[in-house]
């Protein structure tokens, strides 16, 4: 691996961080397909690097939101983070038992779901916070179960899980959307760390890829945060949704080849 490879990987990280920041998603959803489809890295190693980029995005984004105040519901996040962390741990180890084709197939499904959510997000009205001020026990239990699933997907695929966490926080736990997005960022890092245990056990965390990727994601997320108010949201969402759908098709094709 030479300097050009480091720069190329960092460039992919910038793209992942940029798009993630513009779309309110973690870097893994773009970074993992870039590493797997673009650079030819095996999917398990791409997922491990994706988790590192998720850690970076989580720490920097949540750090910003915490300093702003009023966005991150820390105690509410901790309530459900136990389930998400357990799911992440399980996903990180289960990933070792699954073939690359299965992981790619799951990734394609998540990307399709994310693409649909991006297209729908512009038209969905925000749920008023007063609609469920006192959270019923069933909502908490449902949120816990879904967070375990989100954590498991995070561990399996190397993504932050925000594409699932944000709807859980917003729709099930009735957080305002901005607070849900900020709280999701806060949670992702705490889910990624136990998820990485399985990948480290299998020596699938390639530092020469993870480090430049992390730098790129950091830079890209910062650029994206600066660009966001200057770009038209609808154009961005359509472009990103198309990118997600196209990549999902490619991932699915690779998964079918592997089977």
């Amino acid at each position, binding site marked *: 691996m030479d300097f050009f490879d480091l720069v190329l990987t960092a460039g992919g990280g910038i793209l992942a961080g940029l798009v993630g920041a513009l779309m309110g998603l973690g870097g893994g959803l773009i970074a993992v397909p870039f590493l797997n489809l673009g650079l030819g890295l095996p999917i398990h190693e791409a997922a491990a690097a994706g988790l590192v980029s998720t850690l970076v995005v989580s720490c920097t984004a949540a750090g910003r939101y915490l300093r702003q105040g009023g966005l991150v519901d820390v*105690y509410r996040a901790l309530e459900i983070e136990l389930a998400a962390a357990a799911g992440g741990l399980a996903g990180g180890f289960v990933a070792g038992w699954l073939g690359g084709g299965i992981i790619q197939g799951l990734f394609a499904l998540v990307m399709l779901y994310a693409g649909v959510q991006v297209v729908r997000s512009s038209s969905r009205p925000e749920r008023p916070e007063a609609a469920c001020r006192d959270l019923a026990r069933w909502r908490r239990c449902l949120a816990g179960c879904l967070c375990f699933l989100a954590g498991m997907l995070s561990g399996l695929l190397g993504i932050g899980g925000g594409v699932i966490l944000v709807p859980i926080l917003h729709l099930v736990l009735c957080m305002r959307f901005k607070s849900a997005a900020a709280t999701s960022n806060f949670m992702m890092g705490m889910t990624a760390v136990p998820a990485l*245990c399985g990948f480290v056990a299998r*020596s699938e965390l390639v530092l020469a890829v993870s480090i430049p990727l992390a730098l790129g994601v950091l830079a890209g997320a910062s650029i994206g945060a600066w660009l966001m108010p200057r770009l038209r949201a609808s154009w961005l969402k359509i472009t990103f949704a198309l990118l997600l759908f196209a990549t999902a098709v490619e991932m699915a094709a690779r998964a079918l080849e592997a089977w």
Partner: protein
Amino acid sequence: MAALDRLARHLGALMIGGSLLGVGVALAAAVVLVALGSDLADWRMGLDGWWRGPHGWLEAIGGAGILVLGATPVVMLVVCGVQALRDGRPRSVLTVLGILSVLAVGICLAWISGP
């Protein structure tokens, strides 16, 4: 909650500082390794170490940067737990201990299942 809000600024600084420090240290080591002509293709973090190359100490520093990055949310979690204890929120304290236990289980499982 008000006390945690006051602490939120420090938590935010901790998270940003930790991630910048971790990525910065790891990146510096990686750049120096490339400049020295090291082949980084097999530079992986595993339980049997990540400093096996000719410049082992540099590889160790690079991996330590990633460990700092991973430790940042863990430290943040501990701080939240301490604040929850001060705020008289036993359920939150137990939740924090539970999350830390999950991480401990993960490390133990990795140790058992590793090479």
